[in-house]
């Protein structure tokens, strides 16, 4: 499994050629106290690309992006943005990139317009305050104080402060964390617009659907390393079988789990205290097309490559074990499934 990432790196047809790279990272390392936050990362992001850093909390996404933003000094490795380096061209770089940080709280008592006017004044060139307000769709809130904005509006304001300098390269650190679904969609639209305008975007997220929706390419990070890198589609195709089958069973309770030694997730109490039925996993795994099995709480998950032939056989096998299905669904594998396959953990476990 470990070589999947290497494979993706080596054969990545979307990797930019070095000359047109908006961002190039080589051998990046950073440790805090005794934690190796970033442990040897190489990345290249092409101009005009929307690139996602995806991973659970603590994977090293924010440290990586903050090193790129020139806010944190790396212990080792080099970072080049727009062919410039922080050490020598910091002033120029600050003018040409836009940054949205996690959890910035702008002063509550300033209005949207005042906040943007302040940030606009830092840039030699850029769009007007009016344009940035329009872009973030905050026209109605122009004269409202920041303290009275909703979470989504605050996040769009943060985005607008990143855009006032008309940046070539835009960094967004978890732009939708903590937002409700509607506000997230709203922000996604905004990012789509930025993409259309030809800006290079680098964003971190721990939402798989966000990365799938927005990113041209995604690097999956875990424990400070990039463990896979490709387009969302390719990642899903290479790492996972096409589909995921999820089911839960009820039915004849097997009193003594030891009588069926192959049983996985042996008899256990679920949340309601019912005895869960024991499934003979080995029998399921023998079905052609079933690649693997794992448990997510009381839910069984199978990776299945030939959905149309495998599903009837799964039904038959469960029937034969005297089990009744209480839940059954299938979905196409997502980046979330990729992460689970790569690390054996759920993203939300972190």
């Amino acid at each position: 499994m470990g070589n999947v990432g290497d494979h993706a790196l080596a054969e990545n047809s979307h990797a930019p050629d070095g000359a047109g790279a908006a961002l190039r990272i080589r051998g990046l390392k950073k440790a805090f106290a005794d934690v190796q936050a970033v442990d040897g990362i190489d990345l290249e992001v092409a101009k005009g690309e929307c690139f996602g850093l995806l991973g659970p909390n603590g994977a090293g996404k924010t440290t990586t992006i903050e090193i790129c933003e020139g806010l944190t000094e790396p212990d080792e490795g080099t970072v080049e943005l727009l062919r410039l380096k922080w050490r020598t061209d910091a002033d120029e770089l600050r003018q040409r990139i836009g940054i949205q940080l996690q959890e910035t709280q702008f002063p509550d008592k300033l209005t949207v317009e005042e906040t943007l006017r302040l940030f606009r004044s830092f840039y030699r060139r850029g769009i007007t305050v009016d344009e940035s307000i329009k872009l973030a769709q905050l026209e109605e809130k122009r004269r409202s104080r920041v303290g009275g904005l909703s979470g989504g509006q605050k996040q769009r304001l943060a985005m607008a402060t990143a855009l006032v300098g008309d940046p070539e390269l835009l960094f967004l650190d978890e732009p939708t964390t903590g937002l409700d679904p509607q506000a997230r969609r709203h922000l996604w639209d905004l990012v789509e617009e930025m993409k259309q305008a030809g800006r290079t975007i680098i964003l971190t997220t721990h939402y798989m659907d966000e990365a799938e929706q927005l990113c041209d390419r995604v690097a999956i990070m875990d424990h400070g390393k990039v463990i896979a890198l490709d387009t969302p589609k390719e990642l899903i195709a290479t790492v996972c079988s096409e589909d995921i089958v999820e089911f839960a069973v009820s039915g004849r309770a097997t009193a003594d789990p030891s009588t069926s030694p192959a049983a996985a997730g042996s008899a256990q109490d679920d949340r309601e205290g019912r005895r869960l039925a024991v499934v003979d996993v080995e029998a399921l795994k023998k079905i052609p097309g079933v690649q693997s099995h794992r448990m997510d709480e009381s839910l069984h998950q199978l990776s299945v490559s030939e959905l149309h032939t495998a599903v009837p056989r799964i039904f038959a096998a469960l029937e034969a074990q005297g089990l009744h299905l209480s839940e059954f669904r299938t979905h196409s594998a997502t980046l979330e499934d990729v992460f689970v396959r790569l690390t054996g953990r759920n993203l939300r476990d972190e």
Partner: protein
Amino acid sequence: MSSSRKMSFEYSSLFQLTVTRMKLTLREPEAIFWIFGFPILLAIGLGIAFRNRPADVLPVGATTEQLTQALAADKGLKATEMDESAGTHALAVGTIVLLAEQRGEGVVYRYDNTNPDARTARMLADRAIEVAAGRKDVVTAENELVHETGSRYIDFVVPGLLGMNLMGSAMWGLGFSIVDGRQKKLLKRMVASPMPKWQFLAGYLLSRLVMLAIEVVVFLGFAKLVFGVPFRGPLWELALLCVLVSLVFAALGLLVASRAKTMEAVSGLMNLVMMPMWILSGIFFSASRFPAIIQPLVHALPLTAAIDAIRGNMLQGVQLGQLTLQMGILLAWFVVPFAVSLRIFRWR
């Protein structure tokens, strides 16, 4: 022409930082009270408590009509006729401080000689009765009354309050908003933009100076109009002094806030720094009352130097050139904390 000026201001980051800072200060109602309302209320309170009252009229009693009339002739006495037992009672409960009794041809004064008012009444009463009986003064005497401004308590305390206020508003103003910005990751966001770092600080200092002008003019104007506090030194030197004092405490506030991560931490540090000065620097009473052994410490404190210099200017009309010790102490307290905080300041 005017529109292009406006444009260039609009795009000047130093101007925007300064204006933003001022707006944020003015939009905090509590801050407005502490900066403008509090010192005026304090001055009013102290002014009332320590006001110069007109010389008191002392209540006295007398047992005959003749004596009562003689006593009433003195403006410093208020005489009431009463019999002896009523007079004894009145003395006991303090409604009169002296009772004059007719005994044959002579007069007996009954009063408490440990009470200064009673002793004064004794002298006034005796003079009034002797004059009524026909005494002539041997030496002619005239009175010339002096109520000198500058020697009253209110004159002493106004420079103290001014110094205290300059300290408080500069330190709280800088310290709190810097730590607040750090806590809310606003500072980090600012350094992630192309904002020149020095301008962030300069914006604070400039807005402080504008606020300072308002604050000092309001407070001293009030003290002048209501209490007639004197301004004997050159006003421009007083203004310069206020600017310097404000910069000193802004630098101290910056130092205190340069690394603190929480409001609790910075409040604690602020109080730790300001408490000794509230007590020792002679805001309400002269710092010379402290024992000689701690006088060097007392005089090394920036607030002591500030208040001494302000008093020197306002009350004695001393030129700044003669206040070299105080000016030296203030300059040192500006340069050192400022340099240290620039070195150790944390943006995140």
